[in-house]
């Protein structure tokens, strides 16, 4: 390694001898003999080592050296002089000078001083290099930290117990920042790990696994997410943690589900409509033949059948209309008792057929209420039918009953209570029961019924309180206003931008 060395000495013979000696030690040496020269060299050339008499230009040189050390701390200064001059220099420069050599200079002492200066230069370079790398590392770390936090998806890191060890800002905003909690508690409000958990699978085989889930945010909203996992290895190659990245695809799923359900609905509808039309055709035949034969009983039966079929077709069309293109509510004043009894009459045959006791308590004095009768009737029938279904699906109990109670809470409010001792709901079902296309009835359900029923109640300014225990039963309190609310008329599908996109 060749070092650039500046030699300050007024004694040109001494300087030349030193130069010769130093050049033999692979140094590139420049000699200055005046303050003017010194300034010129310092301004135009870079030096690593300055060797010389600090007072060769009285106090001016001394100041120069101090300035140099201040601006370029990497430059190594070796001072030589008489004992007296060195004492002075030590007071002035202290430890900022690498070495002090007494004149006449001992060659061994000079070699050691140069060697020491070179080591200092190398160390300074190393230090500068490390500092630069450390600074780069900090910058990279800050960048990754920012990326981790700002990436537009949910990222969480989980240990083998499925506890969260880290989460990004998006995750914390929507699901809370409870580091240390179980993933399934945070994401799904479950008390045990989810079946087919992709994180567990990644811990097992070290591969990335994907899944699509419905998760619940801390504010209770349901999100459809696509989840992908990746293992995090330690330096021994063991998986210590698994990173889970979830992308919120709720809007896409809503649109997709809506479109596919329209298709499915058309398919299943056509079968149902064919049956209804045949029955309607039958009613017309009975009516015509009854009139021809003058058979009043047949005419009456036919009329009942036609009425029944018309109601079934109406209900189906209404549900489709509500889902496919929501319309404004058409309020009418109805008798609450009559509404409740109509609902009861619609569900009673199914309950009786399935040996389910359907008790009703509907006082005569309920009074009037303002509702859209078609919608409210179909919504309340839906709740009552669900209660009956919950009993039908329950295999635990020998006898089942559903209780339908209507009561006036005060002058402004009525409460329709539907209570059953059917199969009940687990927490997940309870939280998702009003979600579009969520059904606990497998292929028997469309996931439309309670979704629409809930919105009908909400759009009427009402609210629903549900209590349910698995294997014990469910209790629905549906609170409805007697008078049409002034400000609530939420066109929920437009609000959710589902319909507008189609």
């Amino acid at each position: 390694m060749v070092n650039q060395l500046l030699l300050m000495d007024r004694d040109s013979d001494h300087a030349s001898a030193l130069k010769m000696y130093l050049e033999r030690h692979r140094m590139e040496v420049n000699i200055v003999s005046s303050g003017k020269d010194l300034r010129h060299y310092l301004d135009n050339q870079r030096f690593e080592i300055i060797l010389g008499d600090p007072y060769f230009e009285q106090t001016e040189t001394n100041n120069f050296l101090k300035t140099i050390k201040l601006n370029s701390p990497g430059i190594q200064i070796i001072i030589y002089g008489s004992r007296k001059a060195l004492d002075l220099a030590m007071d002035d420069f202290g430890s900022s000078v690498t070495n002090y050599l007494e004149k006449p200079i001992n060659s061994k002492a000079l070699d050691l001083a140069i060697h020491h200066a070179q080591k200092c230069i190398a160390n300074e370079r190393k230090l500068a290099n490390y500092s630069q790398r450390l600074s780069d590392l900090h910058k990279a770390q800050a960048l990754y930290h920012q990326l981790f936090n700002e990436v537009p998806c949910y990222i969480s890191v989980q240990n083998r117990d499925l506890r969260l060890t880290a989460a990004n800002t998006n995750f914390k905003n929507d699901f809370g920042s409870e580091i240390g909690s179980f993933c399934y508690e945070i994401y799904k409000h479950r008390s045990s790990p989810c079946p087919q958990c992709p994180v567990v699978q990644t811990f097992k085989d070290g591969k990335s696994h994907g899944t699509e889930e419905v998760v619940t945010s801390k504010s209770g909203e349901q999100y459809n997410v696509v989840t992908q996992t990746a293992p995090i290895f330690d330096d021994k190659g063991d998986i210590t943690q698994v990173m889970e990245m979830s992308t919120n695809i709720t809007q896409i799923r809503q649109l997709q589900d809506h479109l596919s359900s329209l298709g499915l609905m058309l398919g299943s509808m056509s079968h149902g409509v064919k049956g209804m039309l045949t029955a309607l055709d039958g009613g017309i035949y009975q009516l015509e033949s009854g009139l021809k034969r003058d058979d009043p009983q047949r005419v009456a039966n036919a009329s009942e059948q036609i009425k029944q079929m018309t109601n079934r077709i109406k209900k189906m069309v209404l549900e489709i209309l509500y889902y496919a293109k929501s319309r404004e509510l058409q309020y009418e004043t109805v008798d609450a008792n009559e509404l409740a009894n109509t609902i009861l009459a619609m569900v009673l045959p199914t309950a009786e057929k399935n040996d389910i006791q359907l008790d009703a308590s509907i006082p005569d004095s309920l009074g009037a209420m303002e509702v859209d009768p078609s919608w409210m009737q179909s919504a309340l029938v839906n709740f009552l039918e669900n209660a009956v279904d919950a009993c039908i699906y329950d295999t635990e109990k020998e006898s089942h009953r559903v209780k339908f109670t209507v009561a006036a809470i005060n002058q402004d409010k009525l409460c329709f209570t539907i209570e059953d001792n059917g199969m009940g709901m687990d927490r997940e079902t309870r939280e998702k029961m009003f979600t579009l296309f969520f059904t606990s009835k497998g292929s028997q359900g469309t996931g439309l019924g309670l979704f629409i029923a809930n919105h009908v109640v909400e759009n009427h300014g009402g609210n629903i309180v549900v209590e349910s225990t698995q294997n014990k039963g469910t209790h629905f309190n549906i609170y409805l206003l007697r008078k049409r609310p002034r400000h609530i008329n939420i066109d929920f599908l437009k609000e959710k931008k589902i319909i507008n996109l189609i």
Partner: protein
Amino acid sequence: MKKILIVDDDLNIRDYIASLLEDNGYEIITAKDVPEGLELAKKHIPDLITLDLDMPGEWGPRFYRHMSQIPSLKNIPVIVISGLTGNEYAITKAVATFTKPFDRDELLKVIDETLNI
């Protein structure tokens, strides 16, 4: 009087076909599902069976398979009356297949021809 068994889960449709055929001089037996249909068929040995396809529990083709294995029933002509798409492929040996809602006169014509009336 020729006997016809109607197998359909929809009460309104059963009543309709029953009235139509009764009015046209047939004796009618009705069943709401496959087990009841088989039981009544064995008991009454009808001259013809009208069969729905999509019924809760066992469906129409299952009924046909069961009756085909019973010597006293296996030669009884079957007419399929169903709302399912592609119902003509469900029971290929059926004498006719009608899609709901069906044409009354056409149904009566096929039944009359099948029973040689």
